[in-house]
């Protein structure tokens, strides 16, 4: 094997240079770090913590739903469980997942920089995130919230007797951490690129995170002011959402979804970026239609701001407004479809291998496509009247959020794990876990499409007995899905110690982050790289292995 010739990078050190992990082991060196790589890892631990809590909430709900009478928890508890699950999963896991963990870790390396533009702000964003998390935890421990993650008025402002303000404060505070992260990424991508790294030489992961950041800085403040108004309404009754004074509860829905629909794209665009990295690498092919994939990210970010009304087809919105929002929602699906076509075209005649990240990428494409297409059902005015607030909606967005984003997060974590830790995860176990996740996921959520179509409303813990079989299937699937998530947790920890050394570039990938040692030195590169080529400069299998032809 002529492995040395394959390696395009110059000056790879033979001796072990100091890396960002070995530099210091004290607690203070972690809590006061301004190194984007360490901050990424701080985020990884934090979101894992919230993911576990939110997963337990989901597991309890699934157990409750095994039985049509719901004999495990009280109705109030059930309401609190789905609120905890929604709030924590959305704001404390999904939104920071790929951006704040993988993005933080890789962006500066992918663009050949020593760090993000504002490293101290980066650390501050983590502390703000933790602060928001403490508010949320306080709200849960002191009794919980029963409004659902959407905090709809007038229930949240007037009638709910739970700790709404503390939970809203948690989301409000965490929102500022999102804003700071987005701001930091945008400035970093604009101003910190290595010499020669033009916009169209950027990896597509960077394009997707740039688009994500755009949404983060423009949508999150609207959520912040909305939650502030909600809290003022609840505390003082300022009336803006209260019909008694001439306000309107539906105004809350408009403001909330003006943020929360774009936020859906905060939760999927980064995943699409990860897939755009994995597919070319494991198909050994240049990405098909680079410009289309890049600009479709920006198009999604922009169009995503114009479709919020599709959540209010049955909330007193005029039919004409509904028509426009329906049309726009169909249009916003076009750039997503463009991406799927381009990934598929990249695979065509590629030298595909099936390592774990690639399995997750395949899972992503399939599940995201189902999630996207069922979204079109919901964007149609007539169909939505039937499907609104049913399990069909639940299944649809879990196909996007879990089947899409979490799959991509796992794929990305496996892909960059050797870079982050310097060790390989056990490949066989990785493949098993990817497969178990895929099966478990489909068994959990596919029956929910049927449930919703048959009329099972969301957020109910009792139901007619004829639905029981679907709920049993779903709960069984959730247990398998749980195993799929538990396995990586175990073998990742195992690999930290026993995994084989990864070397700088185990995937023979072309990105700049692979041109430095694993784990990288504190400043990422020993000297600033100069970029002379387009990204994804992969050569086909035959050229890499001439002796095999």
């Amino acid at each position, binding site marked *: 094997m002529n492995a040395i010739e394959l390696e395009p990078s110059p000056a790879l050190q033979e001796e072990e240079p100091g890396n960002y992990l070995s530099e210091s082991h004290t607690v203070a060196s972690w809590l006061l770090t301004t190194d984007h790589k360490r901050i990424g890892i701080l985020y990884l631990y934090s979101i894992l913590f919230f993911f576990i809590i939110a997963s337990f909430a989901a597991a309890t709900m699934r157990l409750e739903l095994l039985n049509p009478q719901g004999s495990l928890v009280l109705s109030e508890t059930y309401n609190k469980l789905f609120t905890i699950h929604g709030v924590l999963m959305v704001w404390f896991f999904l939104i920071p997942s790929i951006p704040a963990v993988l993005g933080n870790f890789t962006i500066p390396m992918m663009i050949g920089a020593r760090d993000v533009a504002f490293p101290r702000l980066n650390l501050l964003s983590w502390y703000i995130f933790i602060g928001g998390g403490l508010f949320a935890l306080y709200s849960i421990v002191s009794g919980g919230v029963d409004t659902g993650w959407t905090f709809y008025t007038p229930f949240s402002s007037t009638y709910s007797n739970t700790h709404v303000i503390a939970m809203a404060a948690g989301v409000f505070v965490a929102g500022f951490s999102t804003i700071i992260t987005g701001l930091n990424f945008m400035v970093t991508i604009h101003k910190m690129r290595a010499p020669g790294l033009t916009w169209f030489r950027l990896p597509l992961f960077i394009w997707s995170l740039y688009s994500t950041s755009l949404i983060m800085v423009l949508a999150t403040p609207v959520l912040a002011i909305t939650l502030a108004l909600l809290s003022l309404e609840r505390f003082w009754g*300022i009336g803006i959402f209260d019909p008694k004074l001439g306000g309107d509860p539906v105004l809350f829905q*408009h403001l909330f979804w003006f943020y929360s629909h774009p936020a859906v794209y905060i939760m999927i665009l980064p995943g699409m970026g990860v897939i755009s990295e994995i597919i070319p690498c494991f198909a050994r092919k240049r990405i098909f239609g680079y410009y289309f994939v890049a600009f479709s990210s920006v198009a999604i970010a922009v169009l995503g701001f114009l479709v919020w009304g599709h959540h209010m087809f049955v909330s007193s919105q005029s039919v004409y407004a509904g028509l426009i929002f329906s049309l726009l929602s169909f249009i916003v699906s076009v750039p997503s479809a463009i991406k799927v076509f381009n990934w598929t075209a990249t695979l065509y005649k590629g030298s595909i291998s099936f390592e774990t990240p690639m399995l997750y990428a395949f899972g992503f494409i399939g599940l995201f496509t189902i999630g996207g297409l069922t979204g079109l059902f919901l964007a149609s005015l007539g169909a939505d009247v039937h499907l609104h607030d049913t399990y069909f909606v639940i299944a649809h967005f879990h196909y996007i959020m879990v089947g899409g984003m979490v799959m991509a997060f796992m794929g990305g974590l496996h892909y960059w794990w050797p870079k982050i830790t310097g060790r390989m995860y056990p490949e066989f176990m990785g493949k098993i876990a990817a497969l178990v996740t895929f099966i478990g996921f489909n068994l959990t959520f596919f029956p929910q499409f049927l449930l919703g179509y048959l009329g099972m409303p969301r957020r109910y813990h009792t139901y007619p007995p004829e639905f029981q079989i679907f709920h049993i299937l779903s709960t069984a699937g959730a247990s398998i899905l749980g195993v799929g998530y538990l396995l990586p947790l175990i073998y990742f920890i195992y690999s930290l110690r026993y995994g084989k050394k990864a070397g700088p570039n185990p995937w023979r990938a072309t990105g700049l982050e692979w041109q430095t040692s694993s784990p990288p030195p504190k400043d990422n590169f020993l000297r600033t790289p100069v970029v002379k080529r387009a990204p994804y400069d992969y050569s086909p299998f035959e050229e890499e292995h001439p002796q095999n032809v």
Partner: protein
Amino acid sequence: MSETTAAPAHQFETLEQQREAATLGMWIFLATEVLFFGGLFMGYTFVRWSYPEVFEQASHRLDATIGGVNTAVLLLSSLTMALAVKSAQLGKRNALVAFLSLTALLGILFLGFKAIEYHGDYVDHIVPGIPSYHFEGPSAPQAELFFWIYFAMTGLHAIHVTVGIIVIAIMAALAWRRSFSPEHYMPIEVTGLYWHFVDIVWVFLFPLLYLVGHR
């Protein structure tokens, strides 16, 4: 005042790159702020569109004179802020300190007038949410909503003014200790951007809240 040749922070290659990054960062932050206030403006628009007459009626109860004087005060402070940035560019340390201090003082003057105005509103019984609130008329609830929106918007703006004053005071202290030079005055420039933004928000708030009823 240029005794140091300032070095860029660790992550930057040049001072120029650092300056551009900081300026861009502030512009993005201001975009965030526009959307933050935007939610309130959206609420204002919705309620005023629903009850235009009540807004005119209730708006008459606000003190447009103090509001007008305060508009002048803030516009003047924008001028002194701009002069501060100019002085920093030219390396005139004493002028920089003077203009920054003047800007901060004008900000404090604004808050002072605002406090007098709020007190006047209290005496006039138009502060909602406390027992002394009183408004006669068939559309009293909607008028109360107007006053809530008035206090929410001017209150949020006052918080921003306060933050601005603190930052400007810190900048003045740093300038006094000769921390800036014509090569390195980016913090002043960025602070200026923020301060102008705070002024512009007020320029919108003043007519929307105080002048709706005046023809």
